[in-house]
């Protein structure tokens, strides 16, 4: 019993939980982006992909439960650790301590984290439950149109771009940090590990920033494609009736 308690009670054990849940979330955002890039293949392919995900109940609910558990554990333990860390030096330096090697990404983790939580809540309300049409009606059967019509609004795009820059920062430090926190360290693979973490963080951030920009510049979602998506959904619904 002692042993398991060490995991939830010690700073290192708690940090390991933060790292493992962080890696799960990191893995998800990679998959999430990769899937969303199907947008480039047009409305039919994208809506088919979305329908396939929604139609696969074990996958859908397995992912949802895993993500929800991860996010909760991630937030609970980071907040607990952050509180402890903030109080570990009650007598602050009077001549500020100089940072020698740490990065902006590392120093802003406790800021980018909660901002991401706020964004995730907005993002789920926007596209999942209940689904908010900011620029037109939200159609649960037409995720392609929901995305395209709303990303045409500059401030919606701006929110997504900003949030994904924050996500990039969070992962820039988080990827490497998580490996360190669970002790995945070997002199042979250190350089590779750092490059891999940075590369994946860049992929996620750039990819997610690309989508709203692509909508704004009509690389994704031309007016014809938007009309096509609506016609397809209408045809499908007519067929069902």
């Amino acid at each position, binding site marked *: 019993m002692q042993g398991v308690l060490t995991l939830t009670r010690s700073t290192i054990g708690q940090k390991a939980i933060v790292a493992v849940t962080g890696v799960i979330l990191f893995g998800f955002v990679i998959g999430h982006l990769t899937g969303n890039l199907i947008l480039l293949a047009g409305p039919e392919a994208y809506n088919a992909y979305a329908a396939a995900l929604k139609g696969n109940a074990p996958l859908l609910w397995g992912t949802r439960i895993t993500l929800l558990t991860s996010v909760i554990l991630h937030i609970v333990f980071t907040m607990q650790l952050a509180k402890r860390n903030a109080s570990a*030096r009650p007598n602050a330096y009077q001549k500020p301590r100089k940072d020698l090697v740490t990065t902006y990404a590392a120093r802003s983790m406790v800021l980018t984290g909660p901002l991401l939580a706020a964004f995730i809540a907005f993002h789920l309300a926007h596209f999942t439950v209940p689904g908010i049409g900011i620029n037109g009606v939200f159609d649960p059967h037409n995720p392609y149109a929901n995305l395209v019509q709303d990303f045409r609004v500059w401030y919606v795009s701006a929110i997504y771009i900003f949030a994904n820059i924050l996500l990039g920062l969070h992962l820039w430090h988080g990827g490497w940090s998580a490996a360190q926190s*669970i002790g995945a360290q070997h002199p042979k693979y250190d350089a590779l590990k750092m490059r891999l973490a940075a590369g994946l963080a860049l992929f996620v951030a750039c990819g997610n920033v690309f989508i709203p920009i692509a909508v704004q510049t009509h690389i994704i979602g031309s007016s014809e494609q938007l009309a096509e998506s609506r016609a397809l959904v209408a045809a499908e619904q007519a067929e069902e009736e």
Partner: protein
Amino acid sequence: MSETIDLKLHVWRQSGPKDKGAFADYSKHAKGISTHASFLEMLDVVNERLVAEGEAPIAFDHDCREGICGMCGAVINGVPHGHRKQTTTCQLHMREFQNNAEVYVEPFRAGSFPIIQDLVVDRSSFDTIIQAGGYVSVRTGSAPDANEIPIPKQISDRAMDAAQCIGCGACVAACPNASASLFLSAKLAHLNLLPQGQPERYRRTRQMVLAHDQAGFGGCTNHRECEAACPKGISTDFIARMNRDVLVASLTDKDGELI
């Protein structure tokens, strides 16, 4: 041939643990300092002048003055042990400073390092961590034969790298979270790497980590400020190694405890 410099010197003065403390300006007392003097010798000179004026000298810790004991330490212009890499305060020389440089000297600050007076802090929380580690199984009778226990060269080198830690506390002073992870991991690695340290490895790891947390130090968030400030250049790789051992100690029965 000795050159001298003048400093605009500000030193933290605090009469006791309960005192609020403040920077005092000793620029008047820090004139004509030999560039061959060490930082502590500079403070000695200032102290002689203070004593001559009937003032209380600045209290600071020191012992060997050759960079091996870990007693000295102050935060100099925002950096523990000053800006020169891998150098203790006692080995930092005044030739590293420009004439008329502004120099602020402050104690190592952390909740677990209460200030005793001026630049002197109580680092007995480090002793508590070491004591929590318990014993190692070594024979204390007649000296064992040399090379009786074979140890691969790379392993003994790494253990020696970890054993370089002099326990000065600069890692804590440098850490944004006032964590002692670098100290803790170095002490753990130097025993955990060697065959002699294996029997108690996981139990020791768990106990020392819990003692670290109980002492009120923060947790590691991988800024690596400690490694940059460490006068012995101890690597944060040891922290990863420690994290791994904590996970093994927590999730398996290798420490002899049933999970």
